[in-house]
């Protein structure tokens, strides 16, 4: 772990050294000779115009693992981008995972089909920083510090809170906290979306449960213990998913608040609550690959995602865009969509640092099966 962080830092230092060189490149942005793969920012109307022209000349962009329906509104976002710029989007492996993205970047290196841009869990971006190109979008300062790499190799895009979804047709009184989930009336009803050693939503549910049960960002173990006791009492149903929620085998499902609306589309009686005793949120990260076959289109995609339009479209998909706070302040946020979000929890949301995340992941990988499974 420590070694990997060192690698990431080293890559960061190299990145900042390179930055001095490429800002020169971007000032000559209007020239058709610009090597966009080394451009680390564009400035002003003129810079954007050059970027748009170059991206249009490339004609297409390779994205990866962006689901076509639901999931932070990516389907609508991709359509709108193509409509606006006439750039075709090739979406590889729409339902893939963060690791699938990294594997594709490594295996497809040098091919025309290699991914240009990524949407990954932050730790995947950090550990693979050398595969990523530094770039800072024009709204860089609106992205809170700590949710972006200082050199611009990755930057968070959207996220949300761990929430409890509940089918009011099957559950008489919906639980509003982790503590209530232990009530015997919820026997065989509580699911989490997937396997915490594979799905980040399920992993986050364990982290949130830990916070609700005396744990901390340094200690996820109480969360594992919580699910072990839930499994022992028979309330926990392993292998939950949106499908089991709709089918009724997990009428209570712990999942990201912004993804629960996918269940609502099929189940009008589905209600979403952010638990009162756990304030846990996480964001995904954007990144441009270092060997992007369409370097200009990749940079334009990021500029688009971090424009008011792009950020509001995430919001339309019930996800909280990373620039939300600054958009509320500036009055550029879409208020209709903002109102539809489930109420955010009281207090300040704190995020695990990367070492805290790594530690928690290792703990879950080591103990999930042996403790929760054994408790059954």
């Amino acid at each position, binding site marked *: 772990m420590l070694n*990997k962080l060192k690698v990431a830092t080293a890559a960061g230092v190299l990145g900042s050294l390179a930055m001095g060189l490429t800002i020169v490149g971007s000032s000559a942005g209007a020239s058709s000779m610009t090597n966009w793969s080394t451009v680390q920012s564009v400035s002003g109307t003129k810079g954007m115009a050059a970027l748009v022209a170059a991206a249009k000349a490339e004609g297409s962009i390779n994205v990866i693992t962006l689901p076509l329906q639901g999931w932070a509104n990516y389907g609508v976002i991709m359509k709108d981008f193509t409509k606006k710029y006439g750039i075709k989007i090739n979406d590889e492996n729409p339902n*893939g*995972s*963060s*690791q*699938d993205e*990294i*594997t594709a970047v490594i295996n497809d290196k040098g091919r025309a089909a290699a991914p240009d841009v990524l949407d990954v*869990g932050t*730790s*995947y971006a950090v*550990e*693979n920083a050398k595969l990523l190109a530094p770039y800072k979008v024009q709204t860089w300062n609106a992205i809170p510090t700590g949710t972006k790499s200082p050199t611009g190799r990755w930057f968070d895009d959207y996220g949300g809170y761990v929430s409890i979804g509940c089918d009011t047709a099957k559950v008489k009184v919906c639980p509003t906290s982790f503590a209530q989930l232990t009530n015997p009336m919820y026997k*065989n009803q509580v699911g*989490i979306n*997937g*396997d*915490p*050693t*594979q*799905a*980040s939503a*399920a*992993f986050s549910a364990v982290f949130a449960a830990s916070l609700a049960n005396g744990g901390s960002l340094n200690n996820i173990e109480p969360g594992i213990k919580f699910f072990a006791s839930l*499994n022992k009492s028979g309330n926990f*149903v*392993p*292998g*939950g*998913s949106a*499908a*089991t929620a709709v*089918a*009724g*085998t997990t009428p209570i499902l712990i999942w990201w608040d912004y993804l629960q609306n996918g269940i609502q589309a099929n189940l009008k009686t589905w209600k979403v609550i952010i638990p009162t005793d756990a304030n846990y949120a996480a964001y995904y990260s954007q990144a441009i690959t270092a060997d992007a076959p369409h370097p200009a289109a990749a940079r334009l995609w990021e500029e688009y995602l971090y424009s008011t339009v792009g950020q509001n479209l995430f919001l339309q998909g019930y996800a909280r865009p990373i620039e939300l706070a600054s958009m509320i302040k500036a009055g550029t946020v879409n208020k209709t969509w903002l109102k539809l979000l489930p109420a955010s929890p009281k207090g300040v949301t704190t995020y695990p640092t990367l070492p805290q995340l790594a530690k928690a*992941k290792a703990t*879950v*990988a*080591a*103990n*999930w*099966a*042996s403790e*929760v*499974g054994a408790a*059954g």
Partner: protein
Amino acid sequence: MTTTPDTANSPRGVGGRSLTARAALWRHTRTFVPVLPFLAYVALGLGVPTYIIANLAFRTRDGHLTMHNLSVITSGGQYLLGFETSIKLAFVTALIPGVVGTLIAYAIAQSEHESFKRVIAAAAGVFANFGGVNLAFMFVAALGPAGIASGWLAHLHLNPWSHGWSLYKFSGVAVVYMYFQVPLMVLVITPALNGLRPQWREAAANLGASKWQFWRYVGLPVLMPPVLGSMFLLFGSGFSAYATTEALTGGTIALTPIQIGSILQGNVISGQENVGYALGLGMIVILLVSVIAYALLQRRTSRWLRP
């Protein structure tokens, strides 16, 4: 290459020998050439991936040689537990369906209705290949806590859920595996049962053997190698099954294939790819050991069959 200069220049006698040698070479070529596409297929589909996995299992992410990955998976903790549970599950779901499947296949083989046999063979082929998330959902709908069959059984006061059984635990997963393992056994053992000729039984009866004696001295010894071989096939099938268990248990049962999936395809464990390859190598070794054990066993049990 023409043959004329060779025969023309060779001293008398030697020409004859070289002709024989060439004939032998030709015989060998005739034996080997048709197998070449298969060998190439095996090399590409099995050899190359195995080499890549074995190689990466001993590398760091930066490509340096290391024993670290191997020591991670063999030094206790979740990965050893994964191998243990996987082997246990594969063993149980090879042994029980192996016996049950053989009995069913034998019963079917005794039937005189050819069309019935064909229907069963086709059905077994379909069921044996039914798996994955669909199978998991089917069982949740039937035998889940709110499943239809669970409801029927509850009426008979036999609801397995109220007797400590759970679809989401080891015993539940084992039951689900039977669904495809039993038909698989029927499918692969039927040809061997057809090879058990009725004449042998008649001959044994003519010599005064009882039914028990026939099975003890003729039937079982003849069937043992194919039955054991098929069970090894079932072991492999149970050992590597993945999607069904993952959908049912959400990782609460430690299985090596699921752990590999978490590492190579997940959203949580990052940067451990080479440990995943080491786990893959471990699975290959276990399957290899079982295949070699089978080969030795078969050599022993089928010794008397050799001319």
